[in-house]
């Protein structure tokens, strides 16, 4: 239970703030004394949080599946030819700033949640792809050879040896990808996706620092909660794989 304590704590703070922002009205009134509305009310914070999490979750799922599939393809005999190009794409692609990728999605796809999702998927799969390649390609060939020598099929070697051993590196890639995407989804407000970035943008446009602060606090808490969740997941994975288990 200790493992999960930090993420649960952050989650509790996040939810408390989402549901109880009204209670802090006097505090925000101090920051923004001469404005009528000091609490952002155009959408409920719960809706914005839900939409933000949904965008990141869907994009992370699609991106991870695509990246892991691509990584597996490029490290099999069938796709070996593609390995140099795929790893080049994974490293050059990460040079592109996320905000530019988001901006480029608009001329092609228009405004709203859809283009944001596409940009998040495209950008989010790069770190996972790079780590999948590093994890699978970096395995000691002796390990896979030993597995094959034990009579395992290629599929068994992949699912019972290679993926469990590369899992931690892949998980670290997913963590990077999700961290970036939480930040990029917040900027997605500028292209019409309704996320926790909305109060920040509205506040900046109207000169309402209280709105900015509310949005910024919630985005920050969401990021910290997610990061600690991955920390816990990585610990659990490390314990699972490290503990001696009969393979197959």
């Amino acid at each position, binding site marked *: 239970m200790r493992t999960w304590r930090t993420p649960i704590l952050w989650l509790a703070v996040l939810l408390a703030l989402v549901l109880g922002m009204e209670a802090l009205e006097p505090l925000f009134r101090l920051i923004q004394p001469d404005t009528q509305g000091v609490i952002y009310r155009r959408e409920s914070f719960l809706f914005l949080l839900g939409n933000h999490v949904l965008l990141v979750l869907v994009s992370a799922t699609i991106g991870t599946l695509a990246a892991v599939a691509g990584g597996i393809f490029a490290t099999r005999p069938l796709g070996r030819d593609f390995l140099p*190009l795929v790893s080049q794409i994974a490293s050059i692609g990460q*040079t592109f700033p996320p*905000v530019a990728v988001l*901006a480029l999605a608009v*001329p092609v796809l228009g405004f709203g949640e859809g283009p944001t999702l596409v940009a998040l998927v495209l950008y989010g799969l790069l770190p996972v792809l790079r780590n999948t390649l590093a994890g699978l390609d970096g395995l000691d060939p002796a390990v896979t050879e030993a597995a094959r020598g034990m009579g395992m099929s290629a599929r068994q070697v992949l699912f019972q040896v290679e993926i469990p051993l590369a899992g931690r590196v892949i998980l670290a890639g997913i963590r990077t990808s999700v961290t970036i995407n939480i930040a990029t989804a917040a*900027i997605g407000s500028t292209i019409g996706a309704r996320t926790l970035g909305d109060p920040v943008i509205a506040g900046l446009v109207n000169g309402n620092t209280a709105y900015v602060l509310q*949005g910024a606090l919630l985005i920050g808490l969401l990021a910290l909660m997610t990061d600690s969740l991955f920390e816990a997941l990585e610990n659990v994975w490390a314990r699972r794989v490290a503990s001696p288990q009969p393979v197959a």
Partner: protein
Amino acid sequence: MSSLDEPPNRVITALGLLALVLVWVLDLGTVQPNRIVSGTGYGLFDAAGWFGAVTVSVGLCALMALAILPLRRRYALLGVLLTLALTALPDLLVVFTSAHLPRESPYARTAVGAGFWSLLFLLVLMLIEVVGRLRLGRRGQLGILVVILAGWALLVRQGGLDSLSLMREFESRPDEFLQALRAHLALALGAVAISFVLAFALVLKMMRSEGWRRPVFGVVSFLQTIPSLALFGLLIAPLSALTAAFPVLQGLGIRGIGWAPALLALIAYSLLPMVRNTFVALTEVPEAVIDAGRGMGMTERQLFLQARLPLAMPVIIEGVRITTIQAMGLTAVAALIGAGGFGTFIFQGLGQAAMDLVLLGALPTIGLALAADVVLSALATALQPRPAAVLQHKRTSSG
């Protein structure tokens, strides 16, 4: 060179096939009656005429043929053909505009379509593949890049692309563009420089006292976790409060929004990659080297400046590279809090639904990030310490 043929390349074939399909399916370009109204799209045949369409299709088929046919110098040929194709690619847009831009309406403009972008993207991927197979060194890669960019620059100078809406957006604000470039570079590079000094000081402290290591790493990774928009937002309130309390600061240009919170946030983000790389670089110098130096009677100061630092330099520069790329992108976000830079065009364009203004901000942002990557990777390679013995060995083996 062996007399055997190089094996056929399936990657180029696959990319070429994809390019051929996309360039025929998607619009090559659009013509807009003015800046905001969305235009009518033209496919390859309508846009470039039968001559253009045939040239593009035959060119792509030639690339695929070169990739499959039994050839001895496959990749050299492919490299030359791809460089030529990329250099000449914008001419397709010239053909398109001269055929379709209505002469009588001064506000009409042409925009680049998805078909053209796909073709450009896939040709670049093919070139990357070929360059990888040829094992071209950094100099060869730069040479190809220079040829292509020079070709494009020549075309722009001759005015062939003047009716492109991207160029129109640029021509209506050349001063603003230069100002944005200056602000972007000043903010990003300023943050990188300050964080470099800060990180170096922190790492020196961490190397002396182990008690500092955990808390420093804890704080800098915490800062990196906070999303950019949130960090910019969180800095606004305290800075406005500070300037309200000390009006002197306002005279210095420090305000709740503007460059001050942007610079602070950029420095905060830059610290993690900078501290991590500098720390790893300086602590992982092999102890044997340090011992040897000590045995030669070097002082601690000499050991640091003449042994530890030069050996650590490539990894430190790698940290600077990651930080600079990251800062170039984050500076664009900082435009939201009024810090200037290319992000201003992006967010203005998004606000006005003027897509080419968005491109005018987004493309240079990407360009700056890529340029930082190229320059700093080259610097890291150049600073790689090469012991005399290795050099000599290389000379004899290659000669």
